[in-house]
């Protein structure tokens, strides 16, 4: 199934790109997720805990970044995970696209999700997966925003510099 989400990062597009491609930092913002290993071939291995009503799933898996385009600011993440207790598997392909929006950056994520096994039938197909994905994205974005704001002093500095630089430029033009 296809899930589309959007969120904003309170930072410029270049900084946002740096943040989004910093996987360990990103994972620390994901609710219920934990990075356990970065394999030599670049695969990120970790655990994601998801609770759907009384069912608590623990997905163990790995993710890889690919098709990074720093100019277009798009990238893809391919992930594969299995429930630790054998209740199913998830395979996902996430496509990220960053676009500047004023002082902020809009991040659009399109996820292609395939669930197999017992988890796939849970919830009578009640659009649960979509809900879980939406909630996950909401929480993730909030955490990411909080994290970025904590580094705000650095950003402010950058802005000041930018302002100074702009001022200088306009002086030179005049």
């Amino acid at each position, binding site marked *: 199934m296809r899930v589309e989400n959007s969120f904003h990062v309170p930072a410029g597009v270049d900084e946002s790109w740096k943040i989004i491609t910093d996987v360990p930092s990103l994972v620390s913002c994901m609710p219920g997720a934990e990075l356990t290993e970065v394999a030599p071939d670049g695969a990120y291995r970790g655990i994601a805990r998801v609770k759907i009503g009384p069912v608590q799933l623990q997905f163990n898996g790995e993710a890889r970044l690919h098709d990074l385009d720093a100019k277009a600011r798009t990238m893809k993440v391919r992930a594969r995970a299995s429930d630790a207790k054998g*209740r199913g598997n998830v395979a996902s392909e996430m496509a990220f696209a960053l676009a500047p929006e004023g002082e902020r950056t809009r991040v659009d994520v399109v996820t292609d999700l395939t669930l197999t096994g017992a988890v796939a039938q849970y*919830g009578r197909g009640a659009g649960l997966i979509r809900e879980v994905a939406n*909630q996950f994205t909401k929480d993730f974005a909030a955490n990411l925003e909080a994290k970025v704001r904590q580094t705000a002093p650095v950003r402010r500095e950058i802005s000041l510099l930018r302002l100074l630089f702009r001022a200088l430029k306009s002086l030179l033009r005049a």
Partner: protein
Amino acid sequence: MKPPPFTYHDPRSLADALRLAGTLENAKLLAGGQSLAPMLNFRYVLPDHLIDLNRIDELSGIRIEGRRITAGAMTRQRALEKHEALAALCPIVREALAEVGHFQTRNRGTLGGSLAHLDPAAELPGVMALYDAHVEVRNSSKTRYIHIGEWSRGYMTPNLEPDEIVTSVAWDAWEGSHGHAFVELARRRGDFAIVGVGALLSLDERKLIRKAAVALVGVAYGPVRLRAAEQALVGKPLDDKALDIAAAEARKIEAKSDLYASGDYRRRVAGVLVSRALKTAHGRARG
């Protein structure tokens, strides 16, 4: 199709059960078992501990004081169904329970269990919503009273902490003569409701609607009160115009799509069932 291994506990008092719920990690409470046992058999849930509440007598029982009804969380659905005094005060309870599973499951299933499990299609939460019931939950240190409108926190996620147990549910029966109806659409008798509607209606001396309560189940993660429709009905006769207004309000709701029905279909069904339920309740209020 067999349960996973767990450590079984069967406390004989509420205090013991609360202590266990407060200290054990990854524990599930076992009430009637009609919803939890299938999940255990499927191994969807994998608790390390199972706290069986069935040997705690103090959690069962129906108490009626005037119009105030208090039912222990472990009260069997069959006990609620058969209770004559309750049927006289709240006849909708018996009518709704006839739709809850089958009589064999109602022999074990409980009121508290149904509320704690909070299946979106469950009828009992809908009946509790009609009465603005309050759910009493306890842990070892405190008691909370939660209005049924605040009970659902998401898909099968009630307003319950891991160390809390539902202990009882309380509501006030409507006073004076009034009508009731519970109607449901399901594929087969006893199946999960695609949409279920409960309605309570009381009329004044001029046969105009004095008070109305309409609740839907099966459309969202928790029961939905149609407050807009209820308000629109007050002071009016229940004529075709009023029914159309109520049905139109029902069709506006946000309804979930799933394997069995689309949101659109649920909205249409909700409109039809709300109309039917109100008509029946009205007939009973007049009669």
